[in-house]
């Protein structure tokens, strides 16, 4: 299955950030998003995840196909690592947490509180959620922030394993993950040429 967007326009807050953007990711492929800060990578990923409905254009997949990992880790300092993993597993109805724990070598950390983890360990825990979702398209926003090089390699392995199952990933990143099956899309070329709508607050709020 291809994951395609056609003539997409996305909005962040009251500003249209991207317009006329089209791409297609084949199953087993990854799409790397590039572009300067503020060029709309996060906006595009939030749009794909269904957080901000597109202003124009269409997507060939539903928001329920997308596993979104944001800049923020979305972790609770008061919970233990094991509790965090169990929580997301039951939200997504995943029965087997072992692959997620193994992929990011979390087993030595299971009894620790999230507050006692380093930045990189928190990132690993946050990324492990992706494997619990069971969703076919990963939309990742700077996933390698604060990871050391060995963990980046592990992360790239996890992405490769995901792609090898005939699934896909869209990753905003500035480093080279060494993925073979990756296309690159520079989002800075898709600036909108039209003015923003008059009432962006209510526009589309009830659709």
């Amino acid at each position, binding site marked *: 299955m291809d994951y395609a967007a056609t003539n997409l326009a996305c*909005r962040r*807050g009251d500003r249209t950030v991207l317009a006329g953007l089209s791409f297609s990711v084949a199953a087993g492929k990854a799409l790397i998003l590039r572009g300067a800060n503020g060029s709309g990578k996060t906006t595009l990923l*939030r749009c794909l*995840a*269904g*957080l*901000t*409905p597109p202003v124009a254009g269409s997507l060939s997949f539903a*928001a*329920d196909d*997308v*596993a*979104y990992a*944001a*800049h*923020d*880790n*979305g*972790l*609770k300092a*008061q*919970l233990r690592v094991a*509790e965090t993993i*169990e*929580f997301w597993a*039951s*939200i*997504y*109805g995943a029965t087997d947490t072992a692959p997620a724990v193994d992929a990011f070598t979390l087993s030595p950390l299971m009894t620790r509180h999230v507050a006692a983890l380093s930045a990189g360990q928190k990132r690993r825990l946050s990324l492990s*959620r992706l494997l619990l979702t069971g969703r076919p398209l990963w939309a990742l926003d700077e996933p390698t922030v604060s990871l050391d090089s060995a963990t980046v390699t592990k992360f790239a392995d996890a992405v490769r394993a995901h792609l090898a199952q005939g699934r896909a990933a869209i990753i905003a990143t500035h480093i080279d993950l060494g993925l073979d099956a990756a296309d690159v899309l520079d989002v800075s070329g898709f600036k909108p040429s039209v003015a923003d709508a008059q009432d962006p*607050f209510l526009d589309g*709020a*009830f659709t």
Partner: protein
Amino acid sequence: MIALLRRDLVLAVRAGGGFGLGLAFFLILCVLVPFGVGPEPALLGRIAPGVLWVGALLACLLSLDRIFQLDFEDGTLDLLATSPLPLEAVASVKAFAHWLTTGLPLVLAAAPLGLLLNLPGAAMPWLVAGLALGTPALSVIGTFGAALTVGLKRGGLLISLLVLPLYMPTLLFGAEAARRGAEGLSPTTPLLLMAGLTAGCIAVMPFATAAALRMNLR
């Protein structure tokens, strides 16, 4: 949904969760009022239903801005919004968790604190029944207010302004039921009206809350 409820309760009870904040405020208020009013048990007994209801309402307000704010700040709300749970379910669970950690303790503490305020014995069961029926409405309405202000830093003041007018009917019916109980009249009419109000809020508010969240996450 149960996982989310359990997580919210665990977070509320663990360090920094704010469990007991509302209850402590309620206790302090009800302990201080007799000192402020002076040694007049009869007067105290007459104002006790109103004091208890206002105290419960303010205690409820105190913890509202935590309902979504913390989840919003650390990115959890984005992840919950993209999870298989519908946002309406998230809103209901959050309101229920808020009631369990704030409303229910108030209901349980109301009877002993009523004694402290010289609340007439005949009013006691109706005060507790009124709080039990009314506090769920306070939680669901408050959750809606919290969803409207979720993107704002320190939106507590705005929540109070938005939510207080919506709290008025519950306060009126609740205090009226307790007053009627104290005077030996039948309190069923205000109690039934309040029960209806609460049922309506529980049915409608999660949808409004989810719409407000969607708007604020965009």
